[in-house]
Protein backbone atom coordinates (compact mmCIF):
# COMPACT_ATOMS: atom_id res chain seq x y z
CA UNK A 1 0.00 0.00 0.00
CA UNK A 2 2.90 2.28 0.87
CA UNK A 3 4.52 1.55 -2.49
CA UNK A 4 1.35 2.31 -4.45
CA UNK A 5 0.91 5.54 -2.52
CA UNK A 6 4.50 6.53 -3.21
CA UNK A 7 4.11 5.63 -6.89
CA UNK A 8 1.02 7.81 -7.20
CA UNK A 9 2.80 10.64 -5.41
CA UNK A 10 5.74 10.22 -7.78
CA UNK A 11 3.42 10.34 -10.77
CA UNK A 12 1.84 13.56 -9.48
CA UNK A 13 5.28 15.06 -8.95
CA UNK A 14 6.39 14.10 -12.45
CA UNK A 15 3.23 15.66 -13.87
CA UNK A 16 3.93 18.71 -11.73
CA UNK A 17 7.46 19.00 -13.07
CA UNK A 18 6.38 18.08 -16.58
CA UNK A 19 3.90 20.89 -16.92
CA UNK A 20 6.27 23.40 -15.44
CA UNK A 21 7.77 24.47 -18.72
CA UNK A 22 4.39 25.14 -20.23
CA UNK A 23 3.06 27.49 -17.60
CA UNK A 24 3.67 31.12 -16.88
CA UNK A 25 6.62 31.90 -14.61
CA UNK A 26 4.33 33.64 -12.12
CA UNK A 27 2.43 30.45 -11.37
CA UNK A 28 5.43 28.18 -11.12
CA UNK A 29 8.22 28.28 -8.55
CA UNK A 30 10.99 25.80 -8.06
CA UNK A 31 13.83 25.67 -5.56
CA UNK A 32 16.36 23.22 -4.24
CA UNK A 33 19.29 22.56 -1.97
CA UNK A 34 22.36 20.38 -1.84
CA UNK A 35 24.49 19.77 1.21
CA UNK A 36 27.31 17.42 2.12
CA UNK A 37 29.18 17.08 5.34
CA UNK A 38 31.46 15.04 7.55
CA UNK A 39 30.69 13.97 11.09
CA UNK A 40 32.02 11.72 13.80
CA UNK A 41 30.85 10.43 17.16
CA UNK A 42 33.66 8.08 18.07
CA UNK A 43 32.10 6.47 21.13
CA UNK A 44 28.49 5.90 20.14
CA UNK A 45 26.33 4.58 17.31
CA UNK A 46 24.75 8.00 16.65
CA UNK A 47 26.46 8.29 13.23
CA UNK A 48 27.75 4.75 12.59
CA UNK A 49 28.63 1.59 14.50
CA UNK A 50 32.44 1.82 14.23
CA UNK A 51 32.88 5.46 15.27
CA UNK A 52 34.87 6.41 12.18
CA UNK A 53 34.67 9.75 10.36
CA UNK A 54 31.59 9.53 8.18
CA UNK A 55 30.46 11.21 4.96
CA UNK A 56 26.91 10.10 5.72
CA UNK A 57 25.66 13.65 6.03
CA UNK A 58 23.98 14.30 2.70
CA UNK A 59 20.78 16.23 2.05
CA UNK A 60 19.49 16.95 -1.44
CA UNK A 61 16.09 18.39 -2.27
CA UNK A 62 14.19 19.72 -5.26
CA UNK A 63 10.79 21.28 -4.82
CA UNK A 64 8.15 22.80 -7.03
CA UNK A 65 5.01 24.78 -6.43
CA UNK A 66 2.31 25.44 -9.03
CA UNK A 67 -0.50 27.94 -8.53
CA UNK A 68 -3.60 26.38 -10.06
CA UNK A 69 -5.74 29.45 -9.26
CA UNK A 70 -5.52 32.34 -6.78
CA UNK A 71 -6.86 29.98 -4.06
CA UNK A 72 -5.38 26.60 -5.03
CA UNK A 73 -1.78 25.50 -5.14
CA UNK A 74 0.03 22.17 -5.55
CA UNK A 75 3.43 21.74 -3.86
CA UNK A 76 5.89 18.86 -3.80
CA UNK A 77 9.44 18.10 -2.78
CA UNK A 78 11.65 15.17 -3.72
CA UNK A 79 14.47 14.56 -1.28
CA UNK A 80 17.51 12.38 -0.80
CA UNK A 81 18.85 11.91 2.72
CA UNK A 82 21.78 10.01 4.14
CA UNK A 83 22.35 10.43 7.86
CA UNK A 84 24.13 7.20 8.70
CA UNK A 85 22.45 5.48 11.64
CA UNK A 86 20.30 8.53 12.33
CA UNK A 87 17.50 7.76 9.85
CA UNK A 88 16.77 5.69 6.75
CA UNK A 89 18.82 6.73 3.73
CA UNK A 90 17.51 7.13 0.18
CA UNK A 91 15.11 9.10 -1.96
CA UNK A 92 11.68 10.02 -0.63
CA UNK A 93 8.75 12.28 -1.34
CA UNK A 94 9.12 14.75 1.44
CA UNK A 95 5.80 16.45 0.81
CA UNK A 96 3.16 16.60 -1.88
CA UNK A 97 -0.07 18.36 -1.06
CA UNK A 98 -2.88 20.49 -2.35
CA UNK A 99 -3.24 23.84 -0.60
CA UNK A 100 -6.60 25.62 -0.53
CA UNK A 101 -6.59 29.20 0.73
CA UNK A 102 -10.10 29.37 2.16
CA UNK A 103 -9.84 32.87 3.65
CA UNK A 104 -7.37 35.56 2.62
CA UNK A 105 -8.43 38.87 4.09
CA UNK A 106 -6.05 41.51 5.41
CA UNK A 107 -6.53 40.34 9.02
CA UNK A 108 -7.28 36.62 8.69
CA UNK A 109 -5.71 33.89 6.56
CA UNK A 110 -6.94 30.31 6.58
CA UNK A 111 -5.22 27.52 4.63
CA UNK A 112 -6.16 23.87 4.29
CA UNK A 113 -3.68 21.21 3.20
CA UNK A 114 -4.49 17.72 1.87
CA UNK A 115 -1.86 15.12 1.04
CA UNK A 116 1.58 14.59 2.52
CA UNK A 117 2.50 17.71 4.50
CA UNK A 118 5.30 18.64 6.90
CA UNK A 119 4.91 18.81 10.67
CA UNK A 120 4.42 22.54 11.29
CA UNK A 121 3.84 22.33 15.04
CA UNK A 122 7.37 22.70 16.45
CA UNK A 123 9.88 25.50 15.96
CA UNK A 124 12.13 23.67 13.48
CA UNK A 125 10.03 20.63 12.50
CA UNK A 126 8.83 21.66 9.04
CA UNK A 127 12.34 22.06 7.60
CA UNK A 128 14.41 19.97 10.01
CA UNK A 129 16.28 18.26 7.18
CA UNK A 130 16.92 21.36 5.07
CA UNK A 131 20.43 22.24 6.16
CA UNK A 132 20.22 25.96 5.46
CA UNK A 133 17.12 26.39 7.64
CA UNK A 134 18.48 24.53 10.65
CA UNK A 135 20.24 26.50 13.36
CA UNK A 136 22.65 23.60 13.93
CA UNK A 137 23.62 20.49 11.97
CA UNK A 138 22.39 18.28 14.80
CA UNK A 139 19.19 19.63 16.32
CA UNK A 140 18.44 19.17 20.04
CA UNK A 141 17.62 15.48 20.33
CA UNK A 142 15.24 15.88 23.26
CA UNK A 143 12.68 17.33 20.82
CA UNK A 144 14.05 16.38 17.38
CA UNK A 145 15.04 12.77 18.06
CA UNK A 146 16.70 11.72 14.78
CA UNK A 147 15.81 8.02 15.04
CA UNK A 148 12.15 9.10 15.07
CA UNK A 149 12.67 11.62 12.23
CA UNK A 150 10.83 9.67 9.51
CA UNK A 151 7.73 9.37 11.69
CA UNK A 152 7.70 12.90 13.13
CA UNK A 153 8.67 14.87 10.03
CA UNK A 154 5.22 14.91 8.43
CA UNK A 155 1.97 13.06 7.81
CA UNK A 156 -0.36 11.86 5.09
CA UNK A 157 -3.71 13.45 5.89
CA UNK A 158 -5.30 16.84 6.43
CA UNK A 159 -4.01 20.04 8.04
CA UNK A 160 -5.34 23.50 8.75
CA UNK A 161 -3.45 26.72 9.42
CA UNK A 162 -5.15 29.91 10.56
CA UNK A 163 -3.48 33.27 11.26
CA UNK A 164 -5.32 36.18 12.86
CA UNK A 165 -3.97 39.71 13.33
CA UNK A 166 -5.64 41.41 16.29
CA UNK A 167 -5.04 44.55 18.33
CA UNK A 168 -3.11 42.55 20.94
CA UNK A 169 -0.97 40.61 18.50
CA UNK A 170 -0.93 37.76 16.05
CA UNK A 171 -2.41 34.33 16.73
CA UNK A 172 -1.57 31.29 14.64
CA UNK A 173 -3.50 28.05 15.04
CA UNK A 174 -2.39 24.81 13.36
CA UNK A 175 -4.26 21.50 13.38
CA UNK A 176 -3.41 18.26 11.62
CA UNK A 177 -4.61 14.66 11.46
CA UNK A 178 -3.00 11.82 9.55
CA UNK A 179 -0.47 9.02 9.74
CA UNK A 180 2.95 8.08 8.43
CA UNK A 181 3.95 4.77 6.81
CA UNK A 182 6.69 3.08 8.85
CA UNK A 183 9.26 0.93 7.07
CA UNK A 184 10.98 -1.98 8.76
CA UNK A 185 14.26 -0.06 8.60
CA UNK A 186 12.69 2.82 10.54
CA UNK A 187 11.24 0.36 13.09
CA UNK A 188 14.69 -1.15 13.54
CA UNK A 189 16.19 2.28 14.13
CA UNK A 190 13.48 3.32 16.62
CA UNK A 191 12.48 0.12 18.41
CA UNK A 192 15.10 -2.65 18.12
CA UNK A 193 17.56 -3.87 15.51
CA UNK A 194 16.18 -7.43 15.89
CA UNK A 195 12.63 -6.46 14.99
CA UNK A 196 10.92 -8.61 12.30
CA UNK A 197 7.24 -7.66 12.47
CA UNK A 198 5.15 -4.81 11.10
CA UNK A 199 4.85 -1.43 12.83
CA UNK A 200 1.98 0.85 11.94
CA UNK A 201 1.11 4.35 13.00
CA UNK A 202 -2.69 4.27 13.33
CA UNK A 203 -3.02 8.04 13.57
CA UNK A 204 -1.27 11.18 14.74
CA UNK A 205 -3.39 14.11 15.85
CA UNK A 206 -1.68 17.44 16.55
CA UNK A 207 -2.71 20.99 17.41
CA UNK A 208 -0.66 24.05 18.24
CA UNK A 209 -1.12 27.74 18.97
CA UNK A 210 1.50 30.47 18.53
CA UNK A 211 1.12 34.01 19.86
CA UNK A 212 3.25 37.00 18.85
CA UNK A 213 2.28 40.05 20.96
CA UNK A 214 1.94 43.40 19.20
CA UNK A 215 5.11 45.52 19.25
CA UNK A 216 7.09 42.67 20.76
CA UNK A 217 9.94 40.47 19.60
CA UNK A 218 8.75 37.50 21.62
CA UNK A 219 6.84 34.50 20.36
CA UNK A 220 5.08 31.93 22.55
CA UNK A 221 3.68 28.58 21.51
CA UNK A 222 2.10 25.42 22.84
CA UNK A 223 1.64 22.15 21.01
CA UNK A 224 -0.19 18.88 21.71
CA UNK A 225 0.30 15.50 20.06
CA UNK A 226 -1.62 12.24 20.36
CA UNK A 227 -0.63 9.15 18.39
CA UNK A 228 -1.24 5.39 18.45
CA UNK A 229 1.06 2.71 17.07
CA UNK A 230 0.67 -1.04 16.74
CA UNK A 231 3.23 -3.82 16.33
CA UNK A 232 2.27 -7.16 14.80
CA UNK A 233 4.90 -9.83 15.26
CA UNK A 234 6.38 -11.96 12.48
CA UNK A 235 5.90 -15.79 12.66
CA UNK A 236 9.40 -16.02 14.15
CA UNK A 237 10.00 -13.03 16.36
CA UNK A 238 11.63 -12.13 19.67
CA UNK A 239 8.77 -9.74 20.43
CA UNK A 240 4.99 -10.06 20.82
CA UNK A 241 2.06 -8.14 19.41
CA UNK A 242 1.91 -4.74 21.07
CA UNK A 243 0.30 -1.32 21.08
CA UNK A 244 1.86 2.01 21.97
CA UNK A 245 0.27 5.37 22.74
CA UNK A 246 2.53 8.41 22.48
CA UNK A 247 1.33 11.79 23.75
CA UNK A 248 3.34 15.00 23.81
CA UNK A 249 2.70 18.29 25.61
CA UNK A 250 5.10 20.95 24.35
CA UNK A 251 5.78 24.61 24.89
CA UNK A 252 8.10 26.86 22.92
CA UNK A 253 9.42 30.38 23.14
CA UNK A 254 11.62 32.64 21.05
CA UNK A 255 13.06 36.12 21.60
CA UNK A 256 14.66 37.93 18.66
CA UNK A 257 16.97 40.93 18.98
CA UNK A 258 18.82 42.65 16.16
CA UNK A 259 22.03 40.70 16.59
CA UNK A 260 21.08 37.80 18.82
CA UNK A 261 18.26 35.39 19.45
CA UNK A 262 17.16 32.90 22.09
CA UNK A 263 14.78 30.01 21.55
CA UNK A 264 13.59 27.18 23.72
CA UNK A 265 11.27 24.20 23.58
CA UNK A 266 10.06 21.98 26.40
CA UNK A 267 8.39 18.60 26.09
CA UNK A 268 6.75 16.04 28.29
CA UNK A 269 6.11 12.79 26.44
CA UNK A 270 3.94 9.96 27.70
CA UNK A 271 4.55 6.50 26.26
CA UNK A 272 1.97 3.87 27.25
CA UNK A 273 3.10 0.42 26.10
CA UNK A 274 0.86 -2.67 26.10
CA UNK A 275 2.22 -6.10 25.16
CA UNK A 276 5.33 -6.20 22.91
CA UNK A 277 7.82 -7.31 25.58
CA UNK A 278 5.46 -10.01 26.89
CA UNK A 279 1.88 -10.96 25.97
CA UNK A 280 0.56 -9.40 29.17
CA UNK A 281 2.55 -6.26 29.85
CA UNK A 282 1.71 -2.63 30.50
CA UNK A 283 3.99 0.34 31.23
CA UNK A 284 3.20 4.02 31.46
CA UNK A 285 6.28 6.26 31.36
CA UNK A 286 6.79 10.01 31.13
CA UNK A 287 9.90 11.42 29.47
CA UNK A 288 10.88 15.09 29.69
CA UNK A 289 13.17 17.30 27.64
CA UNK A 290 14.10 20.89 27.01
CA UNK A 291 16.63 22.92 25.10
CA UNK A 292 17.86 26.48 25.10
CA UNK A 293 19.49 27.75 21.92
CA UNK A 294 21.30 31.07 21.59
CA UNK A 295 22.55 32.57 18.37
CA UNK A 296 24.57 35.68 17.71
CA UNK A 297 25.27 37.54 14.46
CA UNK A 298 28.99 38.18 14.76
CA UNK A 299 28.98 39.87 11.35
CA UNK A 300 26.82 39.93 8.23
CA UNK A 301 28.29 36.59 7.18
CA UNK A 302 29.13 34.89 10.48
CA UNK A 303 26.70 33.55 13.05
CA UNK A 304 27.57 31.79 16.32
CA UNK A 305 25.40 29.21 18.09
CA UNK A 306 25.34 27.81 21.59
CA UNK A 307 22.86 25.20 22.76
CA UNK A 308 22.07 23.16 25.82
CA UNK A 309 19.80 20.16 25.50
CA UNK A 310 18.43 18.16 28.41
CA UNK A 311 16.50 14.89 28.29
CA UNK A 312 15.38 12.23 30.70
CA UNK A 313 13.61 9.06 29.60
CA UNK A 314 11.68 8.69 32.86
CA UNK A 315 10.77 11.71 34.96
CA UNK A 316 10.46 9.45 38.03
CA UNK A 317 13.98 8.08 37.51
CA UNK A 318 16.03 10.99 36.17
CA UNK A 319 19.39 9.38 36.83
CA UNK A 320 18.37 6.08 35.22
CA UNK A 321 18.91 4.10 38.46
CA UNK A 322 16.06 1.70 37.67
CA UNK A 323 17.45 0.64 34.29
CA UNK A 324 20.17 -1.76 35.59
CA UNK A 325 17.69 -3.18 38.10
CA UNK A 326 14.98 -3.79 35.49
CA UNK A 327 17.38 -5.27 32.92
CA UNK A 328 19.39 -7.52 35.17
CA UNK A 329 22.41 -5.24 34.82
CA UNK A 330 22.30 -5.24 31.00
CA UNK A 331 21.35 -1.56 30.54
CA UNK A 332 23.56 1.02 32.31
CA UNK A 333 21.90 3.92 34.06
CA UNK A 334 23.27 6.48 31.55
CA UNK A 335 20.73 5.18 29.01
CA UNK A 336 18.13 6.97 31.10
CA UNK A 337 19.18 10.51 30.21
CA UNK A 338 21.16 12.68 27.78
CA UNK A 339 22.63 16.15 28.09
CA UNK A 340 24.31 18.02 25.27
CA UNK A 341 26.28 21.26 25.15
CA UNK A 342 26.66 22.37 21.53
CA UNK A 343 28.78 25.11 20.01
CA UNK A 344 28.57 26.04 16.34
CA UNK A 345 29.56 28.60 13.77
CA UNK A 346 27.99 29.35 10.41
CA UNK A 347 29.95 31.16 7.73
CA UNK A 348 28.33 32.45 4.53
CA UNK A 349 30.90 31.97 1.77
CA UNK A 350 28.70 33.41 -0.96
CA UNK A 351 25.06 34.47 -1.33
CA UNK A 352 23.80 30.87 -1.51
CA UNK A 353 26.78 28.96 -0.19
CA UNK A 354 27.28 28.32 3.52
CA UNK A 355 29.64 26.37 5.76
CA UNK A 356 28.67 25.11 9.20
CA UNK A 357 30.93 23.67 11.89
CA UNK A 358 29.92 22.44 15.31
CA UNK A 359 30.97 20.43 18.31
CA UNK A 360 28.80 18.69 20.90
CA UNK A 361 29.79 17.56 24.39
CA UNK A 362 27.29 14.80 25.13
CA UNK A 363 26.70 12.97 28.41
CA UNK A 364 24.34 10.01 28.50
CA UNK A 365 22.93 7.82 25.74
CA UNK A 366 19.19 8.24 26.29
CA UNK A 367 18.63 9.71 22.82
CA UNK A 368 20.49 7.14 20.75
CA UNK A 369 18.55 4.70 18.61
CA UNK A 370 17.12 2.18 18.89
CA UNK A 371 15.17 3.53 21.78
CA UNK A 372 13.03 0.64 23.04
CA UNK A 373 15.75 -2.04 23.08
CA UNK A 374 18.98 0.01 23.31
CA UNK A 375 22.26 -0.93 21.60
CA UNK A 376 24.18 -1.55 24.82
CA UNK A 377 26.93 -3.50 23.09
CA UNK A 378 28.05 -0.42 21.08
CA UNK A 379 27.18 2.48 23.38
CA UNK A 380 29.43 1.66 26.29
CA UNK A 381 30.58 5.16 27.09
CA UNK A 382 28.60 7.67 29.15
CA UNK A 383 30.47 10.54 27.48
CA UNK A 384 30.48 10.69 23.68
CA UNK A 385 31.43 13.87 21.87
CA UNK A 386 30.38 14.69 18.33
CA UNK A 387 31.74 17.01 15.66
CA UNK A 388 30.29 17.87 12.28
CA UNK A 389 31.03 20.13 9.34
CA UNK A 390 28.64 20.73 6.46
CA UNK A 391 28.77 22.70 3.22
CA UNK A 392 25.44 23.70 1.70
CA UNK A 393 24.19 25.33 -1.47
CA UNK A 394 20.62 26.34 -2.26
CA UNK A 395 18.62 28.12 -4.92
Amino acid at each position, binding site marked *: MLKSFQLSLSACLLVLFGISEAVAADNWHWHGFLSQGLMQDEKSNFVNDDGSVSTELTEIGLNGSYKLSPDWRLSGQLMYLDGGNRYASGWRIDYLFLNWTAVNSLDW*QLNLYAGRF*KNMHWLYSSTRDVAL*TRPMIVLPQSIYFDAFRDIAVGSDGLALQSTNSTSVGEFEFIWSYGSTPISRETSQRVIATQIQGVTEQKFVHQASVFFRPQHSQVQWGISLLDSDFSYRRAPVDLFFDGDFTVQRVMANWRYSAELWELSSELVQERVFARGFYQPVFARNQFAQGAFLLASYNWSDSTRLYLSYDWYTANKDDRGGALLPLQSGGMVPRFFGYQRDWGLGVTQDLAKQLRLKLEYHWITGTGRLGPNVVPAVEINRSRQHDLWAVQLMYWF
Partner: protein
Amino acid sequence: MAFSFRIQPEQSLGSAQKDIVKRLIFSFYLLWWHSALLAAELTAPVSVIAHPSVQVESLSQAQLRSIYLMRQVVWPDGIAIRVFTLTPRSAVNQQFCRDQLQLFPYQLERVWQKLTYSGTGTPPTELQDEQAMLQAIATTPGAIGYIGIQDEIQDVKVISIKP
Protein backbone atom coordinates in the same frame (compact mmCIF):
# COMPACT_ATOMS: atom_id res chain seq x y z
CA MET B 1 2.39 16.24 34.36
CA ALA B 2 4.28 18.93 36.29
CA PHE B 3 7.79 19.83 35.19
CA SER B 4 10.61 19.89 37.72
CA PHE B 5 14.22 19.78 36.64
CA ARG B 6 15.79 18.14 39.66
CA ILE B 7 19.40 17.07 39.16
CA GLN B 8 20.32 13.64 40.45
CA PRO B 9 23.67 13.18 42.24
CA GLU B 10 25.22 11.56 39.15
CA GLN B 11 24.16 14.56 37.09
CA SER B 12 25.50 17.30 39.39
CA LEU B 13 27.95 19.75 37.84
CA GLY B 14 31.65 19.06 38.34
CA SER B 15 34.28 21.79 38.78
CA ALA B 16 35.29 21.53 35.10
CA GLN B 17 31.69 22.09 34.04
CA LYS B 18 31.36 25.03 36.45
CA ASP B 19 34.45 26.50 34.83
CA ILE B 20 32.84 26.08 31.40
CA VAL B 21 29.68 27.83 32.63
CA LYS B 22 31.78 30.77 33.97
CA ARG B 23 33.57 31.06 30.64
CA LEU B 24 30.27 30.98 28.81
CA ILE B 25 28.86 33.77 30.98
CA PHE B 26 31.96 35.84 30.30
CA SER B 27 31.66 35.09 26.57
CA PHE B 28 28.05 36.25 26.61
CA TYR B 29 29.13 39.50 28.27
CA LEU B 30 31.67 40.03 25.46
CA LEU B 31 29.03 39.30 22.83
CA TRP B 32 26.63 41.76 24.47
CA TRP B 33 29.32 44.44 24.36
CA HIS B 34 30.09 43.55 20.74
CA SER B 35 26.40 43.80 19.81
CA ALA B 36 26.16 47.27 21.34
CA LEU B 37 28.97 48.38 19.03
CA LEU B 38 27.47 46.75 15.97
CA ALA B 39 23.81 47.71 16.42
CA ALA B 40 22.78 49.61 13.33
CA GLU B 41 22.04 53.32 13.54
CA LEU B 42 19.47 53.74 10.82
CA THR B 43 17.53 56.93 10.51
CA ALA B 44 16.42 57.40 6.90
CA PRO B 45 12.64 56.96 6.63
CA VAL B 46 11.14 54.57 4.11
CA SER B 47 8.02 54.82 1.91
CA VAL B 48 5.81 51.85 1.10
CA ILE B 49 4.79 51.96 -2.55
CA ALA B 50 2.39 50.00 -4.74
CA HIS B 51 1.26 49.77 -8.34
CA PRO B 52 -1.19 52.61 -9.13
CA SER B 53 -4.02 50.10 -9.73
CA VAL B 54 -3.93 48.88 -6.11
CA GLN B 55 -7.15 50.05 -4.42
CA VAL B 56 -5.75 50.16 -0.87
CA GLU B 57 -4.78 53.60 0.52
CA SER B 58 -3.39 52.55 3.90
CA LEU B 59 -2.37 49.42 5.78
CA SER B 60 -1.74 48.67 9.45
CA GLN B 61 1.71 47.40 10.40
CA ALA B 62 0.19 43.98 11.12
CA GLN B 63 -1.39 43.87 7.66
CA LEU B 64 1.86 44.92 6.00
CA ARG B 65 3.65 42.24 8.00
CA SER B 66 1.14 39.61 6.79
CA ILE B 67 1.89 40.63 3.21
CA TYR B 68 5.66 40.45 3.69
CA LEU B 69 5.41 37.15 5.55
CA MET B 70 3.66 35.95 2.36
CA ARG B 71 0.48 34.98 4.22
CA GLN B 72 -1.73 37.63 2.62
CA VAL B 73 -1.49 36.89 -1.09
CA VAL B 74 -4.39 38.85 -2.63
CA TRP B 75 -5.62 42.43 -2.31
CA PRO B 76 -9.22 42.90 -1.07
CA ASP B 77 -10.38 43.27 -4.72
CA GLY B 78 -8.97 39.81 -5.54
CA ILE B 79 -5.88 40.95 -7.46
CA ALA B 80 -2.81 38.86 -6.61
CA ILE B 81 -0.19 40.67 -4.50
CA ARG B 82 3.33 40.68 -5.98
CA VAL B 83 5.84 41.33 -3.22
CA PHE B 84 9.24 42.91 -3.96
CA THR B 85 12.18 43.37 -1.61
CA LEU B 86 15.64 44.86 -1.72
CA THR B 87 18.75 42.84 -0.86
CA PRO B 88 18.77 41.92 2.87
CA ARG B 89 21.90 43.93 3.68
CA SER B 90 20.82 47.18 2.06
CA ALA B 91 20.26 50.04 4.52
CA VAL B 92 16.78 50.77 3.13
CA ASN B 93 15.75 47.13 3.58
CA GLN B 94 17.01 47.06 7.15
CA GLN B 95 15.17 50.29 7.92
CA PHE B 96 11.97 48.97 6.31
CA CYS B 97 12.12 45.71 8.25
CA ARG B 98 12.78 47.39 11.56
CA ASP B 99 10.41 50.37 11.32
CA GLN B 100 7.53 49.17 9.18
CA LEU B 101 7.47 45.43 9.83
CA GLN B 102 9.01 45.45 13.31
CA LEU B 103 11.06 42.46 12.27
CA PHE B 104 14.75 41.99 11.58
CA PRO B 105 15.91 40.91 8.11
CA TYR B 106 17.12 37.51 9.37
CA GLN B 107 13.64 36.78 10.77
CA LEU B 108 12.04 37.51 7.41
CA GLU B 109 14.58 35.36 5.59
CA ARG B 110 13.90 32.50 7.99
CA VAL B 111 10.15 32.69 7.36
CA TRP B 112 10.66 32.81 3.58
CA GLN B 113 13.00 29.81 3.67
CA LYS B 114 10.52 27.90 5.83
CA LEU B 115 7.72 28.64 3.37
CA THR B 116 9.90 27.74 0.39
CA TYR B 117 11.16 24.41 1.69
CA SER B 118 7.95 23.23 3.38
CA GLY B 119 5.82 24.02 0.33
CA THR B 120 3.48 26.39 2.18
CA GLY B 121 4.42 29.55 0.30
CA THR B 122 6.76 31.28 -2.09
CA PRO B 123 9.38 33.93 -1.36
CA PRO B 124 9.17 37.51 -2.68
CA THR B 125 11.18 38.80 -5.63
CA GLU B 126 14.48 40.38 -4.62
CA LEU B 127 15.73 43.48 -6.45
CA GLN B 128 19.19 45.00 -6.45
CA ASP B 129 18.46 48.70 -5.94
CA GLU B 130 15.75 51.34 -5.51
CA GLN B 131 15.69 52.22 -9.21
CA ALA B 132 14.86 48.60 -10.05
CA MET B 133 12.25 48.66 -7.28
CA LEU B 134 10.53 51.76 -8.68
CA GLN B 135 10.48 50.27 -12.16
CA ALA B 136 9.14 46.88 -11.00
CA ILE B 137 6.38 48.45 -8.90
CA ALA B 138 5.33 50.84 -11.67
CA THR B 139 5.04 48.07 -14.26
CA THR B 140 3.63 45.13 -12.24
CA PRO B 141 -0.10 45.10 -11.41
CA GLY B 142 -0.71 44.23 -7.73
CA ALA B 143 2.92 45.01 -6.81
CA ILE B 144 4.06 46.30 -3.41
CA GLY B 145 7.55 47.39 -2.38
CA TYR B 146 9.45 50.18 -0.61
CA ILE B 147 12.06 52.85 -1.24
CA GLY B 148 13.89 55.48 0.76
CA ILE B 149 11.99 58.78 1.03
CA GLN B 150 12.41 60.82 -2.13
CA ASP B 151 11.24 64.35 -3.01
CA GLU B 152 9.16 63.16 -5.93
CA ILE B 153 7.81 59.67 -6.41
CA GLN B 154 6.24 59.17 -9.82
CA ASP B 155 4.33 56.33 -11.50
CA VAL B 156 3.69 54.48 -8.22
CA LYS B 157 1.27 54.91 -5.34
CA VAL B 158 2.46 55.66 -1.80
CA ILE B 159 0.63 53.65 0.86
CA SER B 160 0.43 55.06 4.35
CA ILE B 161 1.25 52.71 7.20
CA LYS B 162 -0.64 53.01 10.47
CA PRO B 163 1.03 51.83 13.70
